[in-house]
């Protein structure tokens, strides 16, 4: 009897551990850290506010497809080179800029010269059976008549819509402009409940085929 009890306990413990890990692991809460990128890209410098030393570039300037298609898309190297053709360190003294920064910029220019894309590592991964169209969500937040909604994300404060595109992005992605490295666990979890809460709140259909494909 004692052995049988031990076996049952072991099996139950094993199942609990598996459930625990699968519940808390990557998509929902993201125990994993951000993957190593081929180039250390600081969102703070590019999208951060001018007062804090950033350049306040709008999200949709680089993630160009976000207002027109399903995927936000990572920019092509040409988009980087629009600015970095000029901002390449040739007209600054190395005292003012850290040498790593110049190395990173040089990597971008090298890739452009080679006509090769940069092999960015994916940070947020949506499962294959989910359809998420960025365009429709950005459109909901940035267009239409003036209204106040309470979105069940973040600190759940009432929001006055419409907002600008970067504000719309930060509803789910968090304050990316002030993140040196974008971690998977920053911003909204990718759990289905989050999607459903928001759809219910705003009278959007919750039919399975709306999101699942």
């Amino acid at each position: 009897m004692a052995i049988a009890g031990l076996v049952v306990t072991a099996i139950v413990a094993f199942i609990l551990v598996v459930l625990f890990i699968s519940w808390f692991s990557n998509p929902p809460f993201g125990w994993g850290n951000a993957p190593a990128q081929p180039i250390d890209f600081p969102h703070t410098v590019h999208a951060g506010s001018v007062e804090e030393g950033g350049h306040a570039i709008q999200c949709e300037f680089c993630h160009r497809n976000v207002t027109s298609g399903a995927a936000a898309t990572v920019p092509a190297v040409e988009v980087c080179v629009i600015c970095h053709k000029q901002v390449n360190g040739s007209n600054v003294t190395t005292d003012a800029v850290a040498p790593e920064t110049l190395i990173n910029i040089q990597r971008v220019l090298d890739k452009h010269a080679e006509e090769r894309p940069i092999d960015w590592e994916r940070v947020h991964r949506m499962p294959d059976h989910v359809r998420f169209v960025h365009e429709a969500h950005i459109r909901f937040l940035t267009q239409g008549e003036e209204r106040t909604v309470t979105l069940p994300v973040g600190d759940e404060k009432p929001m006055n819509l419409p907002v600008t595109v970067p504000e719309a992005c930060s509803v789910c992605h968090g304050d990316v402009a002030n993140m040196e490295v974008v971690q998977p666990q920053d911003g909204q979890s990718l759990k289905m409940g989050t999607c459903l809460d928001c759809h219910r709140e705003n009278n959007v259909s919750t039919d399975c085929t709306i999101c699942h494909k």
Partner: protein
Amino acid sequence: MPNAEFPHKWGMVIDLDKCTGCQACVIACQAENNIPINTKDYFLQRRAYEWIRIERYWEGEYPNIKARFMPVLCQHCENAPCEPVCPVFATYHNEEGLNVQVYNRCVGTRYCINNCPYQVRMFNYWHPNWPARLENQLNPDVTVRTRGITEKCTFCVQRLRRGEIEVEARGGQRLSDERITGGNYDPACVQACPTNALVFGDLEDQDTSIKPYFDDVNAHPGHGEHDRETRGYRLLEEMNTRPSVIYLKKIDQYPLKGGH
């Protein structure tokens, strides 16, 4: 998005008089919906994946013989026998008259396959496989179903969803019924049919060309085929599954001698 104000009820009419059995619908479906390439083995084991198939029947004896073709796809029944048997609610009927299969909810019991009288539900017995050069042509709007789950025709719901979002974006406001109809949303098989044997439409739209056939068949249910004004009938009508697909029977101009 489907809303109560402007409901949809999607349906299809298949005119067997126009069907030549060319299999264009089968190929279009295969390309649109990421269906694995069937090998000879798959067919020999009767495990081939085809969301729409052409059933071929021979009539008469050689040399006095004719081939008959019938495209069979998921009938999207109103009384679907597959739906109540699913233990995990992976298949259900949605507000638009579609019989939906939620792949990530399916656990692969195959009850629905056994309960489907039309044999249009497919089980993934193997991991899906494509030749390497075909993997880049997979449709990103459709998930690649993994091994061990059931799949079936969706009436290309991904096209409907994409169309809805595009129409919404163009108007800058919510979708209204004047915009998305059977006229601007067609499944891949309907789009590919060279003889227009397959016609798709919205039964809530009074102007759709398929509406009279459904009205006629609904007015004479069961074995009332001879009272009908059109050639319409449903597959296995006596089972009262009430499919959303209506077939128009073939009128043979030159019947077989001695045949029926």
